[in-house]
């Protein structure tokens, strides 16, 4: 049957390719250099944060700057509990606590529209950073904490697993009726509510799901830094960079988000090491140029190119 061979092509072939890639990546610690393992861990972190951000802010069009909050909670939970719990449990608990935080925050504030929501999430970051700092200064007498040490290969494998799970979740949601519902909420919230979609529950749920992965990633990355303090953990870079990566890669397609994160992180690494004095400038320049000429990101450029060569038709994302 025609549709069966089509399904085979669109799922089986990419599926096999992905599986092969996954196997190679999982085996990497045994033959890859230490530098590449560490570098890839960082890239995985960015992929998780960016995909997590797109999961919520993509369809709903509400720009969240709370990524660093959930990432930071993961970091802090790792610092507090890491010594007492096996690694797996610690990571899961970090993710869960971030989720719960997202549920609370979401429940209170997702009603805020547009810029107000964005500014609120940014304010949340500052709030929690200073709150923890104050607490530490007042009650524990010290600033910062030590985190349990984990070896680089383990960190790498954990990040690989979390990245895989995040991408899988994002993919499945997108393709499901919930993905469609989220898109409708972003386009016409009132109409979406009128066809039976519980807008608040949907938004808060996806917010919490994305926070889970951000928290889990934070817990793992904390073990690499070994010492953390509120200012390191709740760093606004982790809120802004995923947004830039997503826009650079193209928010519409999941593949675009991933490629965007990879290229961006790679670019940053290269620029920092080759041009340590100018890298910020060059970075900014790259961003400006790509915004001028690729407003839909890299994915958008690929789509346009395909439309021109293949001759139109809708691209299912």
């Amino acid at each position, binding site marked *: 049957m025609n549709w069966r061979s089509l399904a085979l092509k669109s799922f089986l072939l990419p599926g096999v390719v992905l599986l092969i890639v996954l196997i190679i990546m999982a085996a990497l610690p045994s033959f890859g250099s230490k530098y590449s393992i560490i570098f890839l861990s960082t890239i995985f972190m960015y992929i998780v944060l960016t995909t997590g951000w797109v999961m919520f802010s993509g369809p709903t069009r509400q720009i969240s700057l709370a990524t660093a909050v959930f990432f930071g909670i993961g970091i802090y939970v790792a610092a507090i509990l890491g010594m007492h719990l096996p690694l797996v449990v610690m990571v899961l608990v970090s993710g869960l606590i971030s989720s719960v935080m997202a549920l609370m925050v979401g429940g209170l504030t997702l009603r805020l529209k547009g810029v107000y929501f964005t500014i609120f999430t940014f304010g949340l970051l500052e709030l929690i950073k200073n709150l923890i700092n104050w607490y530490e200064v007042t009650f524990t007498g010290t600033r910062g904490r030590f985190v349990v040490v984990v070896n680089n290969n383990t960190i790498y494998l954990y990040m690989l697993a979390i990245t895989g799970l995040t991408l899988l979740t994002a993919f499945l949601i997108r393709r499901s*009726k919930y993905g*469609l519902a989220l898109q409708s909420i972003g*386009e016409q919230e*009132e*109409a979406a*509510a*009128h066809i*039976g979609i*519980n807008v608040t529950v949907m938004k808060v749920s996806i917010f919490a799901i994305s926070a889970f992965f951000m928290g889990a990633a934070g817990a793992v990355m904390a073990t690499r830094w070994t010492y953390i303090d509120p200012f390191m953990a709740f760093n606004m870079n982790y809120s802004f960079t995923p947004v830039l990566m997503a826009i650079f890669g193209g928010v519409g397609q999941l593949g675009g988000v991933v490629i965007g994160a990879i290229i961006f992180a790679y670019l940053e690494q290269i620029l920092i090491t080759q041009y340590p004095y100018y890298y910020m400038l060059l970075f900014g320049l790259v961003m400006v140029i790509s915004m001028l000429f690729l407003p839909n990101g890299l994915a958008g450029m690929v789509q346009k190119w395909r439309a021109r060569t293949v001759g139109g038709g*809708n691209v299912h994302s």
Partner: protein
Amino acid sequence: MSILEGQGVTKYFGGLAAVSNVDFHVDQGEIVGLIGPNGAGKTTLFGLISAAVIPNSGTIRFKGENITSLKPHQICKKGLARTFQSVKVFSDMSVLNNVTLGAHFGRLQRVSEARATDEAARLLEFVGLTGKAKVQAKDLTLANQKLLEVARALATKPEVLLLDEIMAGLNSTEITQAMELVSKIRAQGITIFMIEHVMKAIMSVCDRIMVLDHGKKIAEGTPQEVATSKTVVEVYLGE
């Protein structure tokens, strides 16, 4: 007991009474028209019924149950759906997906992908949009977008359907087709409450008509009664 009724429904925006102490009822199987000058509060009344807006006072009952404090998605799940005066289709989605969403989240429970899509396809045929299933909603003409909204609302399997000016901007032929569609919908057992300015349609399709002006109900009755009422002629119909 009417399937949809309201008592003393009032809504203020700032100091202005958009809807003032309005009583209304729609009986099962009826097609009731809602007419009135621009700014009379018709769409606001629909908004109060569908819970897009919360009334300042008064109660609204659907199938005997007080729905005044419910949220829009809950009211949809109870069996009341609506279209919007300023069309609110999901522009970046295909026509088919717009309707499929209605099937997924409306009153049908636990619908599989296949069933939702089939239902959507069936409804597209019902309203006459089959050929446009894969088109992006934003590329439809205004008239077709209105039909899409109707199909999407029908996908939620309502018992009562609120139609807000679905005939605005249609030419005579299209109006006749729309009138047929409204009759077809009633034939399916769905009660209809419709806002319209197209007199030809209202007069021939409605069993009963309600007239609002400046937020108050000023007349109610059969199309004949309303068309010949002096107040209505003066305030709304002219001639």
